[in-house]
C-alpha cells in the first residue's frame, strides 16, 4: 500500500511538470509569432540580384531634427529602376528596425519605382507608408528629403521625383508635406542641406 502523502506528492510533481510544459509551449509560440510579425514588417518584395556596393544613405534623426549620411552595403542591380528601388528600401529598412532613428509604420515599403521620362521618376509606396506615417511638417519633410536625396546620390540623372501611394496620387504624406508636386531634386538638395 502506497502511503497517501506519497501519492499526493507524486500527483503534485506531475501537475507541476504539466503546467511547466504548457507554459513553455505558449512562450515558444509567442516568440514564433513575434518573429513572424517582425519579418512581415520588413520589405516584402523578393531579393534582387546585383553586386554588393558600398553606398550612402541620407537618414533622418528625429531627436536631433537632422539628416545624416550613413554608409551601407547593399546589393544593387544594374537596372536603374531596380537600383532605385533597392536604394529606397535600404532607407526604409533603417527606419523599420528597432530602435529606429525615424520610426515608420509596419508595412511601409516601396511598391514600384519607374521612370516616366529620362529624368523623371515615380516612386510608388505602399499604403502603410503614408497611412501610418507620423503627422507633422518636419517629420514628413524629413522622410521625403531622405528618400529623394538617397535616390539622387545613388541613381544618376534624376531631375524630378513624384510620389504615389498604393498606385494613386495623394494630397499630402500625413496632412502636411505636399505629395502632389513633382519634386525638383536640385531644390530638395538645397532644402536637405539645412538639416545636415
Amino acid at each position, binding site marked *: 500500500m502506497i502511503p497517501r502523502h506519497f501519492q499526493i506528492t507524486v500527483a503534485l510533481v506531475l501537475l507541476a511538470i504539466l503546467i511547466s510544459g504548457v507554459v513553455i509551449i505558449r512562450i515558444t509560440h509567442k516568440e514564433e509569432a513575434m518573429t513572424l510579425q517582425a519579418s512581415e514588417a520588413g520589405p516584402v518584395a523578393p531579393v534582387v540580384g546585383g553586386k554588393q556596393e558600398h553606398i550612402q544613405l541620407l537618414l533622418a534623426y528625429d531627436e536631433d531634427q537632422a539628416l545624416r549620411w550613413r554608409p551601407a552595403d547593399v546589393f544593387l542591380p544594374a537596372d536603374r529602376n531596380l537600383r532605385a528601388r533597392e536604394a529606397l528600401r535600404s532607407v526604409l529598412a533603417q527606419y523599420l528596425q528597432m530602435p529606429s532613428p525615424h520610426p515608420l509604420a509596419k508595412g511601409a515599403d516601396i511598391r514600384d519605382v519607374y521612370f516616366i521620362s529620362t529624368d523623371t521618376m515615380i516612386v510608388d509606396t505602399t499604403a502603410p507608408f503614408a497611412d501610418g506615417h507620423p*503627422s*507633422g*511638417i*518636419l*517629420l514628413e519633410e524629413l522622410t521625403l528629403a531622405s528618400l529623394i536625396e538617397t535616390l539622387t546620390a545613388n541613381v544618376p540623372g534624376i531631375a524630378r521625383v513624384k510620389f504615389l501611394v498604393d498606385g494613386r496620387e495623394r494630397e499630402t504624406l500625413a*496632412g*502636411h508635406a*505636399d505629395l502632389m*508636386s513633382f519634386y525638383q531634386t536640385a*531644390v530638395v538638395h538645397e532644402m536637405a542641406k539645412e538639416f545636415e
Partner: protein
Amino acid sequence: MALCSALAVSSAAPQQQPGYKSFPSVAPGAEGQKRTPEFFVMIDPSHGGSDKGASLGGKLMEKDITLRLARELRRELEERGIASRLLRESDIDLSLDRRAEITNEQRAGIYVALHAARPGRGVRVYAPLLVSAQQTPAGRFLPWDSAQSGALSRSQAVARAVTEQLRKRGLTVASLGMPVRPLNNVTAPAIAVELAPDQDDPQSQETQRRQNSVTSAIALGIAEIRSQMGSRP
C-alpha cells in the same frame, strides 16, 4: 481639381485651363473706385473635423491646439489694431485646396497656418518652397501649384520677421523653406508656424505660457513687417 471657385474679374475672362485658376486683382464691386482693400490676416487653424492632425499624447490632438492658438493669435492681432479672420471657428472639415481658395478669394494680406507637432520643444517657422518646375501664368490664370510665386520674397520676409520676434522671446526657433500644403497655392505672403508641445505634458502651464508667447511674437512680427512694407505686404 476644382476650378470654379475663383472669382471672375470680368465677364471677358479667358477660359481656364486645367491646373490654373484666376485670381482677382481688385475687390469685387470695386471696379472704377480703385480703393485699397482692407488689410487683414487670414489665420488657418490647420486640420479639423475628421482630419485630427498629429496626436500629441492622450486625447490631445493637433486640430484642437491649432484652433486654440488661432483664437489667441486673433486676440493678439486685434490688440495691435490688425484685422484678422479665421478659416474655421469650430471643429469642421476643410480641404487644403478650399483653405487656399478662400484665402485667395477674400484677398488676405497675409496667410498664417498654425500647426503643432513633434519632435523637439521649439518653434518652427516655414516659408513656402516651390519644388515643382515653374509654369508660366496663362493670362490672368495662375498655375495652382505655384500660385505663391509672386509673393515668395514677401513670404520669406514675413517668416524672417516672425522668427526674429520669437528669438527675442528666448524661444528655440528654426526657420525653414518647405513645400507645406497649401502655402504654394496661396497668392498672398504665406507662412506656417509649427509649435512643438512639451512631450512630457502638452497641457502644462509652461506649454500654455509658451503658446501665448508664440502667438504674441507672431502678431508682433506681422505688425513689424506691415509697418515696413506698407498696408499690403
